[in-house]
């Protein structure tokens, strides 16, 4: 087995409640999580906003001191010796504001190369190579404020790779990107993995985790509620059928009736473009898909179309928590 590049053990972070007395119990943002990431793996922290993903990644990247637990990066104790651990870490923080907009892309990379301790000659070579690799050479001498969101995110990624780190951490890397830019960024992340680097990323996009990650830790309320490969997590739901139906009108009583008949749970979204309610029903054998459709029709639902789909990581999350990621 490959060497563990990130080792997290019983990591916990508590914050005192604002405006409350010391006797009040603290807010537990991360409640004792443990995992290991071997070299060359893309590992995803998946969960809704506020689940504890970013707090975890900040503790690993030494930006936040844990209340208890341990973190090792490339074998270095990141809590006791943060500078040593940071030498092995490249981090892309959430959002595009972690670089200087009044500096050019090249100036940003030169600046961070100096902070990471790269000699000037090495820095120049790496910066040129990274600008080329990320298709930024032509715009390298323009101020970052004139870049698109996707270009800024590529500069952030280039910045994180300057010191050729063993571990690359990305916090919500594709948030705010258009589909094309997000796809390009995911390709770059796969390239980074192919170089033998370890990648740890947080995301609340199920499809992204499914496509990118070798393993996924699903977070909820500061805890890991499942950890495995996306395939294995979905395989655990082999008794689950997922029915998707577009319905012209919806009545909450129909959802209750479905659950009374044996549906595990259901999720409803309104599609503004198609002007239909998109219903997803999880069924586990107590109620077949045919019976569910018949039940809906009998209740008076005007079903425009329906289909069966394979379980996704979103379905895994719903099965584990009884709620959708967006809730």
């Amino acid at each position, binding site marked *: 087995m490959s060497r563990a590049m990130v080792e997290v053990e019983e990591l916990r972070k508590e914050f005192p409640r604002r405006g409350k007395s010391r006797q009040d119990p603290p807010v537990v943002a991360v409640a004792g999580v443990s995992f290991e990431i071997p070299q060359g793996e893309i590992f995803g922290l998946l969960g809704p906003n506020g689940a504890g993903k970013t707090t975890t990644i900040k503790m690993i*990247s030494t*930006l936040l001191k844990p209340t208890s637990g341990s973190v090792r990066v490339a074998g270095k104790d990141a809590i006791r010796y943060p500078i040593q651990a940071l030498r092995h870490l490249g981090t892309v923080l959430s959002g595009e*504001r972690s670089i200087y907009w009044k500096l050019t892309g090249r*100036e940003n990379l030169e*600046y*961070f190369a100096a902070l990471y*301790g790269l000699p000037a000659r090495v820095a120049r070579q790496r910066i040129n190579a990274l600008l080329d690799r990320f298709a930024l050479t032509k715009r390298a001498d323009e*101020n970052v404020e004139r870049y698109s969101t996707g270009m800024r995110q590529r500069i952030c990624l280039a910045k994180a790779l300057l010191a050729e780190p063993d571990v690359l951490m990305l916090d919500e890397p594709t948030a705010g990107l258009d589909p094309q830019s997000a796809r390009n960024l995911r390709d770059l992340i796969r390239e980074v993995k192919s170089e033998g680097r370890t990648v740890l990323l947080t995301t609340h996009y199920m499809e992204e985790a499914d496509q990118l990650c070798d393993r996924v830790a699903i977070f909820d309320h500061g805890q890991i509620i499942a950890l495995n490969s996306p395939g294995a997590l979905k395989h655990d739901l082999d008794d689950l059928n997922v029915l998707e139906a577009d319905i012209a009108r919806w009545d909450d009583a129909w959802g209750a009736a479905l659950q009374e008949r044996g549906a595990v749970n259901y999720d409803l979204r309104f599609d503004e473009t198609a002007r239909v309610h998109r219903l997803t029903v999880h069924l586990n054998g107590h109620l077949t898909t045919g019976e569910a459709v018949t039940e809906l029709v009998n209740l008076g639902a005007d079903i425009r179309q329906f289909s069966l789909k394979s379980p996704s990581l979103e379905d895994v999350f719903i099965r584990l928590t009884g709620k959708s990621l967006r809730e």
Partner: protein
Amino acid sequence: MDEASGMHYWRAVMAVAKRWLTTYIRYPTWVISVLLWPVLFPFGYVFSMRALAGPTGEALSSFAQLAGTTDYVTFLVTGTTFWMWFNIMLWGLGGSFRMEQLRGTLESNWLAPLPKTFLAVGVFLAEALMGLVQLSMSMLTIALVYGVRLAGSPWALLSLILISIPSIYGTGLIFASLVLVAKEINGLIFFVRGLITVFCGVTYPIAVLPGWMQSVSRVLPLSHSVSAVRAVLAGGGFGTIAGQLRYLAVSGAVLMALGFLAYAIIQRRMLHAGTLGQH
């Protein structure tokens, strides 16, 4: 610290200073603070003094008794120029870490594998250099506009300005750390600037203050800088300002040490509270 680390930290300090200066000059409004403001700002005080002095300047003798000079223009302009130096420092160095926090770049700087004190050293160097440039340009401008002339030793003046830097920028580091805790700069600047205006004899001789206020004034390094500059402009040399130079050297060392200590304490506190990236 080994040689490689030493080189790394030195390069980082220089990079921070270069980045700071590059960003600064890309905001063209800096010209206002360097060239226009130093000229405009003293006018209000100069005209107030002219009104108080009377049509033929008959009240100037009582001013001279307290200030030691009838040249109220030089007296005022010296005070306001140093006040502005301090004020620009508060907005610049004092707001530096908060500005990084608001921009979102503070955390990305903290991800660098080096002791974070070196980041502060870089900002300190850039701000001190920029402050000196601003002060020089301000002094040149007011010499041209107000006709202020240096009658004393230029070396004493230069030494005085250089030895004032640690006390002014040490105060700035303490202030910058407080701003990170308070997460708001305006109120703190108005408060500190108000204290300086009242206690440091910027526009009036300290002798007019009540006794206890004079005691406070004597503790503040900026009072010593302002009174010493006035003495040198009036013809003094090293001998005239030796006491003030000694006081500024000692207080500068203390304030610098306190500044870096405050920075270290706040850094530790933010890493525990998770407020490094909070707006």
